[in-house]
C-alpha cells in the first residue's frame, strides 16, 4: 500500500515538474507546481514527517504559490500562451548541464554511502517513531528547534523581518522629485 502511494505521489510530482518547465502560460505552470508540492507533502507523510507535510501544504502550496499567482495577476502575465523557451546554443548548453547534473546526482545519491546509512537506519527510524508517539508530530520538531537550534530559529525570524522590509522597499513606486 505504501509503495503504491509512493509511486503515485512520485509520478504526480515528476509530471508536475515537467509541466512547470513546459507550461505555456505562467498560471498553468503555477498550477502544475501546486500539484508537485501537494504530492511532495504526501511523500512527507509516507516518511512520517507529518508536521512538515502540514506546513508544506499551508506555507508552500498555500502562501508562497498564492504570492506568485498574485504577482502574475498583478502584472497581467496570464495571457502569453507560448512556451518562451531559449533555443540554439542555450538549449544545447542546458542539455549538457542537465546531463552532467543528473550523472553527478545519480552517482552521489545511489553510490557507496548508502550501505553505511542502511546499517544504522533501522534504530534511528524506530527512535523517531517512538519520539513521535511520545511528544506528538509537532513536539518532535519543536523540541530540538527551541533547545539546540534556538539561535538559528531566532535568526530565521530576523531574516523574515529583513525580507519584509526589503520587499516593501523594492516594490514601492519611486517617488518623483518635487516640481516634475
Amino acid at each position, binding site marked *: 500500500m505504501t*509503495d503504491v502511494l*509512493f509511486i503515485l505521489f*512520485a509520478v504526480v*510530482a515528476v509530471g508536475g*515538474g515537467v509541466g*512547470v*518547465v513546459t*507550461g505555456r502560460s*505562467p498560471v498553468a*505552470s503555477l498550477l502544475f507546481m501546486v500539484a*508537485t508540492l501537494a504530492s*511532495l507533502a504526501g*511523500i512527507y507523510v509516507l*516518511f512520517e*514527517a507529518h*508536521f*512538515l507535510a502540514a*506546513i*508544506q501544504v499551508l506555507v*508552500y502550496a498555500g502562501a*508562497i504559490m498564492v*504570492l*506568485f499567482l498574485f*504577482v502574475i495577476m*498583478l*502584472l497581467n*502575465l496570464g495571457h502569453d500562451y507560448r512556451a518562451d523557451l*531559449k533555443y540554439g546554443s542555450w538549449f544545447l548548453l*542546458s542539455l549538457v*548541464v*542537465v546531463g552532467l*547534473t*543528473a550523472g553527478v546526482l545519480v552517482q552521489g*545519491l*545511489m553510490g557507496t554511502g*548508502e550501505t553505511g*546509512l*542502511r546499517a*544504522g*537506519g533501522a534504530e*534511528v*527510524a524506530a527512535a*523517531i517513531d517512538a*519520539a513521535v508517539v511520545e511528544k506528538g508530530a509537532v513536539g518532535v*520538531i519543536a523540541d*530540538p*528547534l527551541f533547545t539546540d*537550534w534556538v539561535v*538559528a530559529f531566532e535568526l*530565521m525570524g530576523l*531574516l*523574515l523581518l*529583513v*525580507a*519584509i522590509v*526589503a*520587499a516593501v522597499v*523594492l*516594490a514601492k*513606486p519611486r517617488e518623483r522629485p518635487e516640481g516634475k
Partner: protein
Amino acid sequence: MLTPALLVSALLFVIGTLGVIVRKNAIIIFLCIELQLNAVNLAFVALSRYTGIEGQLYVFFVMTVAAAEAAVGLAIIISIFRHYETVSVDKFNLLKW
C-alpha cells in the same frame, strides 16, 4: 524506500535546473528554483529516517528561506516590470557586456 525517494529528488532537481536554463519568463525561473529547493527538501526528509530528526529541521529552515526569497524576488520582479514593462530575462541586459 530511500533509493526511490532520492531518485525522485534527483529527477526533480534536474528538471528544475533545466527550467532555470531554458525558460525566459522570470517568474517561471523563480518557480523552477522553488522546484529545486523542494527536491532538496525531499532528499532531507528521506535521509532523516536514517540520520535523525535534524533533517526535518533543515527542511523547516529551507522553507523559511524560500518564503523570504520568494517575497524579495517577486518584489524585484515587480520593480523590474515597472521599468521595462516585461518579465522576459533576455530583455534585462544592463549588466551584460
